[in-house]
C-alpha cells in the first residue's frame, strides 16, 4: 500500500476540519497541507507536489475549478472534488470519471474516493498529465453548457492570412462562454495541454481551448515559445527567475505567481535561454 500525500482545500474552517478528521483515520493518507482558498492551494501544490487533492468547488477568489485550470498538467495531482450542491458540475464529473464527494461528507464515500485514487495512482505513477485530462474535459463541458455562441474549433482563425501576417502578430482565438477573445501572442505567458484541450495562461486568466499542443505550436512564434515539459510550453519573455531543482530539473518563475516545472529532458532549453 502506497501512502498518498494529500492536500485538502476548503474555505469553511469546520468543513476543512471534518475532511482532515475523516481522512486522518485512513492508513494510506498523509495530509501534508490544509488550505482555505484557491490561491493558497496552488502555492502549496507547487511547493509540496502532493499525490492527491481534496478540493472544495465554491471558494472565494479562485474556485476549485480555477485551481485545476491554473495548475501545470505535468505536475497535476489526482483530484477529488467536494461539493455541496453544484448539480451542474456533477453530470460533467460523472461523464469524465472525475471523482467527488457530496457534503455532508460520509465515511463510505470518502473511503471509496480514496480507494479509487489509490488505484489510479498505482497505474499512472509518473504520468500526471492524465489527471488533468479528465478534469479539464469535465470543466470544458461545464463551461460549454453555458455557452451561447456557436462552437469554434481549433483550426478556426479570424481571417489571418499566414502569407500576410507575421507569425509574431498572429492572434490566438479563444472562446469563453459567450465571448470570443483574441489573444496577442506577447500576452500569453505559458500553455499546457490536457487531453483534447490546452490551457492558455494569459493576463492573469486561464482560457481553455479545444486543440492539441501540436496545433498550438504551429500557430505560435517558435523563437518565443519553447517546450519545457512534455505538455508545457512557456513564453521566454515571461521568465523572471530560474530555480534549480533536484535531479537536473528546474523551476521557472513566470510573473509573480506561476511556478513552472522544467523536466530533465528539456533542461537544454533553459540552458540556452540563460546563455543568451
Amino acid at each position, binding site marked *: 500500500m502506497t501512502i498518498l500525500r494529500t492536500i485538502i482545500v476548503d474555505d469553511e474552517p469546520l468543513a476543512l476540519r471534518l475532511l482532515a478528521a475523516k481522512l486522518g483515520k485512513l492508513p494510506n493518507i498523509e495530509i501534508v497541507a490544509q488550505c482555505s482558498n484557491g490561491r493558497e492551494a496552488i502555492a502549496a501544490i507547487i511547493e509540496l507536489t502532493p499525490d492527491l487533492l481534496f478540493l472544495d468547488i465554491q471558494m*472565494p477568489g479562485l474556485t476549485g475549478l480555477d485551481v485545476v485550470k491554473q495548475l501545470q498538467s505535468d505536475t497535476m495531482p489526482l483530484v477529488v472534488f467536494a461539493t455541496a450542491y453544484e448539480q451542474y458540475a456533477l453530470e460533467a464529473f460523472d461523464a469524465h470519471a472525475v471523482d467527488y464527494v457530496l457534503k455532508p461528507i460520509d465515511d463510505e464515500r470518502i473511503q471509496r474516493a480514496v480507494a479509487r485514487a489509490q488505484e489510479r495512482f498505482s497505474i499512472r505513477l509518473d504520468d500526471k498529465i492524465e489527471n488533468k485530462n479528465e478534469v479539464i474535459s469535465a470543466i470544458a463541458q461545464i463551461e460549454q453548457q453555458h455557452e451561447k455562441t456557436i462552437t469554434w474549433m481549433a483550426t478556426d482563425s479570424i481571417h489571418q492570412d499566414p502569407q500576410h501576417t507575421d507569425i509574431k502578430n498572429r492572434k490566438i482565438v479563444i472562446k469563453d462562454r459567450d465571448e470570443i477573445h483574441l489573444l496577442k501572442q506577447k500576452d500569453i505567458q505559458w500553455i499546457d495541454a490536457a487531453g483534447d484541450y490546452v490551457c492558455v495562461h494569459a493576463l492573469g486568466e486561464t482560457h481553455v481551448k479545444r486543440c492539441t499542443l501540436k496545433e498550438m505550436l504551429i500557430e505560435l512564434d517558435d523563437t518565443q515559445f519553447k517546450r519545457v515539459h512534455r505538455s508545457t510550453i512557456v513564453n521566454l519573455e515571461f521568465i523572471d527567475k530560474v530555480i534549480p531543482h533536484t535531479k537536473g530539473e528546474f523551476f521557472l518563475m513566470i510573473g509573480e505567481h506561476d511556478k513552472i516545472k522544467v523536466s530533465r529532458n528539456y533542461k537544454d532549453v533553459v540552458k540556452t535561454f540563460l546563455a543568451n
Partner: protein
Amino acid sequence: MLGAEDATRKEHIKRIEAQSVARDAKLKMLRYQLNPHFLCNTLNAINSLIEIQESEKAQAMTVQLSQFLRHSLDNDPDTKITLRDEIGALNLYLEIEKTRFADRLKLDFLVDEQAQEALVPSLLLQPIIENSMKHAISKNEKGGIIVLRAGINQGRLIIEISDTGASHPHSKPLDFRNETGVGLENIEQRLTVLYDDDYQINTMRRAEGGRSTYINMPFELSD
C-alpha cells in the same frame, strides 16, 4: 348539449392550469427558502462539530437551523411582522453563517427604536442578506461586513443593507443562474401586492466594492 359540456371542460382545464401556476409559484418560493447549498453546507458543519466533539455547538447549530426553517415555513410571505421579529429571524440564519465562516463574517446592525415596531412583509430582508452572503462574504478571502440601518424618515420606513463585496470583483460568477434577480424580483412582486406602487427599492454597486440596497416603504404599526 355538446356546447355546454365543452364549456365545462374548458372551465375545468382553466382551473387546473391556475392551480398549477399557483403551486409552481409556491414551490419556487419554498425552494428559494430551503436553499440547498446552504442546507448541505450547514449539515456538513454540524457533522464536523460532532466529529470534533463540540457537542454543545453542534446542538446550538441544529436548534438554530430548525428555528430558521420553521420561521421560513410557518410565515406566509403575505403576512406582516415587526421589523424586530424579521431581524430576529435574520439573526438565526446569520448565527449559522457565523459558525460556518468564523471570523470572515462581521455584522453591523443598527435599527432605530421606532423602526423596531414597524411592520414589514415576513422574509422581506432574507433574500438580500443571502445575496450578500453568496456574492460578498463567501466570495472574499478576507470575508467582509454586512451593514444594516433602519429608521423612520418623514413617516416612511427606510432600510439600507450593504456589503463589502468579493475579493476579485471581476471574477466570473460560478453560479450561472442569476439568483440575485430571483431574490429581488420576488421582493418587488410581494411589495407591489401589499403596497401597490407606494414603495421604492433600489440596489446599486458601491464605488468601494460591494452592493447596497435601499428600501423606502410605508411606516405601519400593528393595531
